[in-house]
C-alpha cells in the first residue's frame, strides 16, 4: 500500500516537473521583445566605486537606446535590459556569476565587469559557452594573448596609458635643445598586471628613444609609503617619474612627492581623475600629467549621444556626478553591442560575435575597431595635465586645450602645496 502511494507521489512529482519544464520556454518567449545583456559588476568590495561607474555607464546607454526606440534586429525592434549581479570585487565570484547568467538566466550576451582581474576570470567562462563579451574596463594586455574569440574590448590596453607621456617629454626636451637620449626615466608601479603593463609600455618607448631607466621599482600592493623610492629619485634626478598604482598610488605619489619636496620635470600618473588628485591635493597635484581613456572635450560623436560633451551632460543629469572615463567606456561597450545586433540581423550569439569582429563604429567615446585578438586599435589615449587646479588636455595635439608645462617649475617657484608655504 505504502509503496503504491509513494509510487503515485513520484508520478505526480514527475508530471508536475514536466509541466514546469514545458512552461519554462514559454516564460522566455513572453519576454522575447527584450534583449537581456548580463553583467557581473563590483557593487561592493574594493572596486565598488569603479563598479558603480561601470553600472551607471551601462544604464545610461541602455536607457538612451530604449528612449530612441530600441534596437532593430532584422524587422523586429527590441528593447534592451541588463541583468546585474554583484561580484563583490572577487574574481572567483565574478566567474561563478557569469556562469549563472549564462546557464541559469540564459543570457546570451555579456557585458564586462570592472577591472582586468575580473575580466580575466570571466573570459574563460564566456569562451567556454561561446557567448560574446564586450568589455570596457579590462585593459590588461595579457587578456588578448589567450586567443579568446568572444572577447572584445573597446578601450586601449594598459601599456598605452603612459607611452604618450614619454613621447611628449621627449618632444618638449627636443624643443628646448636637449637630446632625448640624455633623459632619465624613473618608474614606480604597483606589483599588479595592469601597472606592470603600464611600465612595459613606458620602458619600450623610452628605450626606443634611447632614454635610460634609472629606477624600476615595484610597489607592494599594500603600499602605504613610498619615501624610499622617492629618496632614490632625489639622488638620481630623473627627467620623468612614472607612477602607476590605481587611485591609491596616484594619491600617495602626489602627496609624498610634494611633502618630501622631490623635484622631477614631469610626474606622470594613471588614475588621477578617479583619485581626484586636483580636488584633494590642491597645489601638490599641480603640473602632474595623467593618462585617461576619454575626455568630454574630445570631438567624437555618434547618433545616440551626439558629442562627447553632450554625453557628459546627460550622465551628470542622471547620476549627479561628472562621468569618469570608466563610465564612458562602459556606455561605449553597450553601443558596440547595439551596433553589432543591428548589423548581424540576428540574435544568434555566434552571428553577433562575427558582426562584432567586423565592427567599425564611431562613438562619443572614440572610434571602435577590433583587431583579431579583440582589442580596440582605432582609439588613442588622452593625457591631462593639472593646471591651476583643473585637468587640461595636453595630448593628443589635435584636441589639446592647453600647452604642456615642461619642465615643471622647482618647488620653491611653485604654487604652495600646503597652506604654510608662501605663494609666489
Amino acid at each position, binding site marked *: 500500500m505504502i509503496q503504491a502511494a509513494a509510487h503515485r507521489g513520484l508520478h505526480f512529482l514527475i508530471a508536475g516537473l514536466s509541466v514546469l519544464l514545458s512552461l519554462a520556454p514559454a516564460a522566455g518567449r513572453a519576454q522575447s521583445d527584450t534583449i537581456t545583456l548580463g553583467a557581473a559588476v563590483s557593487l*561592493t*568590495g*574594493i*572596486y*565598488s*566605486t569603479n563598479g558603480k561607474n561601470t553600472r551607471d555607464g551601462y544604464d545610461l546607454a541602455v536607457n538612451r537606446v530604449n528612449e530612441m526606440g530600441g534596437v532593430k534586429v532584422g524587422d523586429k525592434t527590441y528593447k534592451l535590459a541588463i541583468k546585474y549581479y554583484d561580484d563583490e570585487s572577487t574574481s572567483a565570484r565574478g566567474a561563478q556569476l557569469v556562469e549563472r547568467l549564462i546557464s541559469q538566466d540564459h543570457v546570451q550576451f555579456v557585458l564586462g565587469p570592472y577591472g582586468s582581474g575580473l575580466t580575466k576570470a570571466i573570459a574563460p567562462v564566456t569562451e567556454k559557452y561561446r557567448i560574446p563579451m564586450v568589455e570596457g574596463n579590462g585593459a590588461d594586455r595579457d587578456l588578448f594573448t589567450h586567443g579568446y574569440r568572444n572577447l572584445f574590448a573597446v578601450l586601449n590596453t594598459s601599456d598605452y596609458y603612459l607611452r604618450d607621456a614619454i613621447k611628449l617629454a621627449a618632444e618638449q626636451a627636443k624643443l628646448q635643445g636637449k637630446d632625448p637620449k640624455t633623459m632619465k626615466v624613473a618608474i*614606480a608601479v604597483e*606589483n599588479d598586471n595592469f601597472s606592470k603593463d603600464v611600465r612595459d609600455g613606458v620602458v619600450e618607448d623610452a628605450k626606443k628613444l634611447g632614454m635610460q631607466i634609472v629606477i*624600476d*621599482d*615595484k*610597489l*607592494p600592493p*599594500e*603600499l*602605504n*609609503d*613610498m*619615501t*624610499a*623610492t622617492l*629618496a*632614490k629619485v*632625489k*639622488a*638620481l634626478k630623473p627627467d620623468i617619474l612614472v607612477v602607476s598604482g590605481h*587611485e*591609491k598610488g596616484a*594619491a*600617495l605619489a602626489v*602627496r*609624498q612627492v*610634494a*611633502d*618630501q*619636496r*622631490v*623635484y622631477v620635470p614631469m610626474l606622470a600618473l594613471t588614475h588621477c581623475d578617479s*583619485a*581626484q588628485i586636483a580636488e*584633494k*591635493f590642491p597645489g601638490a597635484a599641480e603640473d602632474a600629467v595623467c593618462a585617461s581613456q576619454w575626455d568630454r572635450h574630445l570631438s567624437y560623436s555618434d547618433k545616440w549621444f551626439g558629442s562627447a560633451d553632450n554625453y557628459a551632460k546627460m550622465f551628470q543629469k542622471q547620476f549627479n556626478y561628472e562621468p569618469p572615463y570608466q563610465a564612458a567606456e562602459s556606455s561605449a561597450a553597450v553601443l558596440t553591442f547595439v551596433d553589432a545586433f543591428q548589423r548581424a540581423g540576428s540574435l544568434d550569439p555566434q552571428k553577433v560575435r562575427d558582426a562584432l569582429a567586423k565592427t567599425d563604429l564611431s562613438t562619443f567615446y572614440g572610434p571602435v575597431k577590433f583587431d583579431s585578438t579583440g582589442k580596440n586599435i582605432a582609439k588613442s589615449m588622452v593625457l591631462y595635465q593639472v593646471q591651476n587646479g583643473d585637468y587640461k588636455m595636453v595630448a593628443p595635439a589635435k584636441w589639446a586645450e592647453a600647452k604642456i608645462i615642461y619642465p615643471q617649475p622647482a*618647488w620653491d617657484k611653485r604654487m604652495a602645496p*600646503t*597652506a*604654510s*608655504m608662501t605663494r609666489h
Partner: protein
Amino acid sequence: MSNLPILFDNPALALQVVIDGILVGAIFALIAYGMALVWGVMNVINIAQGELVMLGGYVAWYVVRAGLPPALGIVIAAAALWLVGWLLYRLVIFRVVDGDLFIAILATFGLSILIQQLVNQVAGADVQSIQSGLGTLVVAGGMIAVPEIKLVAFAAAVLLGIALVVFLKRSRLGQAIRATAQNARAARILGIDTHRVYAATFALNAAICGAAGALVAMTWVIHPYLGLPYTIRSFMIVIVAGIGNIATVLLAGAGLGVAENFAGFVFGAQYQTAFVFCLLVAILVARSAILVRQRKVLR
C-alpha cells in the same frame, strides 16, 4: 644593490632615509602599543587592529570635512574610537577573552571584515586624505625634507607612550590593568572587576588606534581596505619587542622602519616588505639561540 654607492656619496640622503624610517616606525609603534596592551592583559591578538586605525582615520576625515581643525580630528577620533572599542568589547570580545587564543583571532578577524565592509558602504571605496595644513622642513640644500606632520606624529607617538606608562604605573585603573595582566583570577579575588578592566583596556587600545588613524590620514592616505598591513606590522613589532615594555616597542618600531626604508632604497620597493619579514625570522632565530644558551647556563 647598485643603489648602495649613492648613499655613500650623499650622506645627507642616507640621513633622510633614516629619518623617514624612524618617523614611519613611530606611527606603527603607536599602533603596536595598543596591540601589546590587549595581548598582554587580555591574551587576545586583535586582528582588527588595522581596521580600528582605518576607522580613526575616517572619523578624523569626517571631522575635518565638517570644517573643524585637523588637531581636533585627532582628539575626536581617539574619543570616538574609545567608544567603539568599549562597544566591541561589550558585544563581542568579552565572549572570547578567557577562551582559546585562536577563537579570539577568529572573532577579531570577523570583526575586521565587518568593519571594512561597513566603512565601504558608508564612506565608499575612494581613497581619502586629510590636509594637515602643515608644511615641510627643508634642510641640507633640499636633500633632507621632512613633512612637519610626520614630526607631529612622532611626537604624538612618544608622548602617548610616556602617558601610557605613567597611566599604567600611577592610576588606579592602570594598576588594576597591570594586576589583571599578572593574574586575572587573583585580581578578581582581590575585588577587581576584571571585565571592567578588560573593557577599559580594549577601549584604550581602540583610542590609541583612533589617534594613530587620524595621523595616518594626514600623513598618507586612507581607504576601507588599508587595515591588514597595519595589523601585521604592529604584530611584528610586538613579536620583536615583547609585550611588557613600551620603550622597546617604540625602538622596535623605529628600527624596523629604518631597516625597511634602507631595504627599499637599496634593493627596490618590491623587496621592502620581504626584507622586513626575513629580518623578523632572523631576529626570532637569534633570540631563540640566545635563550637556549641562557637555559644551558641556568642548568
